[in-house]
């Protein structure tokens, strides 16, 4: 598979191309590139001979910034990486610093973190699956899903005051305790989601014959390719590889919850197609809902503790380094943090972003597709440019 990765496929001169081929710039301002991604397509009619993605339009020097602010000050910056799933980003960073400092948070805080992370996963997948439907041309499921995402954002706003960028997971705790009555509100949301939104999504979009025909045979990513390009999260599971950090290397007490790892099965075509990746996301929403039911129940049973109990007065780890990864909605999000032990700023923060590796396989999957399929492929990889460019 690696031999398919030839330099000629993603680098060419304008003078080289045949007269009947056309260079089409898709993006950075384009309705379906999911952010400021620019793709240079070499097209022959409707067929794409080669695609070259250009990233970097949203580069904000996250890693350099992180070296110049103190450890808690990095958290708002992590929120801005994957802005569709901010809770997941700050959770990974907080856990990494806690591990570096040897802080162990109480079970109550762990459950709160699981609840917000899984709510965020549902919200993030709502956007992913919804916009994917819109890429294929179905507008209605998108709004149905955004309606439910809105309810999750309401819960978050109730909890910590912010709707998109929360600064919620702190080193050693969370910023606010869950409000009074949160379990009931969360259950109300889940009941409605399980009973209406999810079945409707499966019938209206996923089960639609046109949708299946558009997605089930394109963008097939076989297991060796997926592994060699380090795809993670739903993209890898879509190819049928059962890797989920919540199961394989549990954090925050994920081992206490009963949930399944959703895999692409190739129901309507080869395994690892765009359809499979999207279906994995849709099914993961139902699994997250299962986790949430258990977590809310556990929350009521667990002894309540102060959520700021373990928050250190001054976050100043001893010299050392840590690599910690979590299962963010888009895949494995890893933080590599080096502490020199002298200042309150991290010496180095490096992020291993799931979207970046997903983007790296794009040009191989895109070869020989039609233009409409390129859109379907970008949507199925579910990239967020804020995280690719950081």
């Amino acid at each position, binding site marked *: 598979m690696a031999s398919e990765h030839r330099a000629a496929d993603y680098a060419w001169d304008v003078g080289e191309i045949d007269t009947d081929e056309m260079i089409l710039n898709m993006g950075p301002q384009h309705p379906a590139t999911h952010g400021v991604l620019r793709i240079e397509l070499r097209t022959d009619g409707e067929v794409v001979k080669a695609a070259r993605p250009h990233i970097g339009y949203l580069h904000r020097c996250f890693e350099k910034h992180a070296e110049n602010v103190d450890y808690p000050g990095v958290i708002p910056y992590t929120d801005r990486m994957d802005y569709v799933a901010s809770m997941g980003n700050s959770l990974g960073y907080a856990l990494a610093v806690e591990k570096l400092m040897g802080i162990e948070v109480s079970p109550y805080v762990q459950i709160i973190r699981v609840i917000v992370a899984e709510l965020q996963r549902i919200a993030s997948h709502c956007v992913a699956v919804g916009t994917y439907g819109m890429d294929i041309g179905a507008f*209605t499921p998108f709004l149905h899903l955004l309606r439910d995402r809105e309810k999750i954002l309401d819960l978050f706003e109730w909890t910590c005051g912010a709707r998109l960028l929360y600064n919620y997971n702190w080193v050693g705790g969370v910023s606010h305790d869950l409000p009074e009555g949160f379990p009931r509100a969360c259950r109300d949301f889940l009941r409605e989601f399980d009973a209406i939104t999810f079945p409707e999504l499966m019938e209206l979009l996923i089960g639609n014959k046109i949708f299946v025909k*558009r997605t089930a045979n394109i963008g097939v990513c076989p297991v060796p390719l997926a592994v060699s390009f380090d795809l993670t999260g739903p993209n890898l599971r879509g190819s049928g590889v059962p890797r989920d950090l919540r199961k394989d290397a549990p954090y925050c007490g994920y081992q206490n919850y009963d949930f399944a790892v959703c895999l692409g099965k190739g129901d309507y075509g080869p395994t690892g197609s765009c359809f499979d990746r999207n279906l994995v996301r849709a099914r993961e929403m139902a699994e997250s809902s299962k986790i949430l039911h258990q977590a809310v129940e556990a929350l009521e049973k667990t002894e309540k503790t102060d959520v700021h109990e373990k928050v250190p007065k001054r976050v100043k780890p001893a010299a050392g380094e840590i690599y910690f990864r979590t299962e963010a909605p888009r895949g494995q999000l890893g933080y590599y943090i080096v502490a020199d032990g002298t200042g309150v700023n991290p010496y180095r923060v490096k992020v291993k972003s799931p979207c970046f590796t997903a983007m790296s396989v794009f040009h191989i999957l895109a070869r020989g597709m039609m233009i409409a399929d390129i859109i379907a492929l970008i949507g199925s990889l579910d990239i967020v440019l804020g995280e690719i460019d950081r």
Partner: protein
Amino acid sequence: MEFTYGLLTGLIPGLAGAPSWVLVALGGLIPAFITFNFVGLGPIIYVYAERKISAFMQDRLGPMRVGPYGLLQTIADAIKLLFKEAIFPAGVDKLLFLVAPIIVVTGSFLPFVVIPWGARLQAVDLNVGVFYVSAVSSLATVGLIMAGWASDNKYALFGAMRSAAQIVSYEIPSVMALLTVVMMAGSLSLQDIVRGQAGGLQNWYLFRYFPLMPIAFLTFFTAGLAECNRTPFDIPEAESELVAGFHTEYSGFFFAMFFLAEYTEMFVISSVASVLFLGGFHAPHPSLQAIGALGLGWFWLLLKAWFLIFVMMWLRWTLPRLRVDQLMHVAWKVLLPISFVLVVVVGGLVLKWPAGFPWDRWVGWPITLVLMGFLIVGMIRAISWSRRRTEELLA
């Protein structure tokens, strides 16, 4: 036109002695004026309807701010578009860029000349009406290609090429499905075709030769959807792929003209389908044809056409979009064989039973009505289920 003559000379006795060119001019101008206004203002209703229908399907309110229930929203939008600056990007071919929307709008307006609103309420009863409709409605393709080419934009060019391929492909099954009706009516005049369906529901061409003519209707309607670029066949302007397709570079009034043409074309396809298959201006039962002296033909045609427009909107907000090759597959491998078989079989049957199977009177429409009944009952049950479910959840 004859109707207008009669009306004019009846209302203004002095006109009877006027020179004939005055009569011709007035007899042509008055229907033209009425039709043009109807067609030009219709999209304001359709756009509002589309926005409200999509809003209800998507669990939101739609336009609510301008006027009661947002009724004036589309008027406000139309005024905004009229006063907006029309931008000509560098590199456009100005002449073609200007002419293209005019051709598209003209192509979508012309079929109204022959659409019969009543036994005498028709601008002109051309003896080649069906042929004329299918000829002028494909005029829009020329405009679309012009727009795509003149825009000097690759997305616009893609959209234009797609629309050309699409409309040329779908014209064939559409015309073949038309031919079945023409063979049954024995005439190309739309007036004759409607006359052949007089006498109530059971005589509509849709219900003849059950189940052949319903298939012909579905073929025609599907091809019609493709011809007016509606989802699931909206690839020439697929917003997620080609930004806005052939009208990417258009703004202001010229964009409004494409918009107008699109909605007008929807009405043309719907009204032609109603005329050919759903009895045109005939009521479902002859007793409903008029209230006293007031003929209701226009009402019935409008009702049928608007129902079909509603179906188009319903499909648009439900279905995803096909890919280019799948679109061609549907046209050439599904609709075309079906329509060819229909032409041959219906042609043979017309020789044996010119007015449909003898038992059609009792078979076709009841089955169709029962199917529609199931559909409506299913819809009502789905709505009430979701209401009940919501109430349960909120309790």
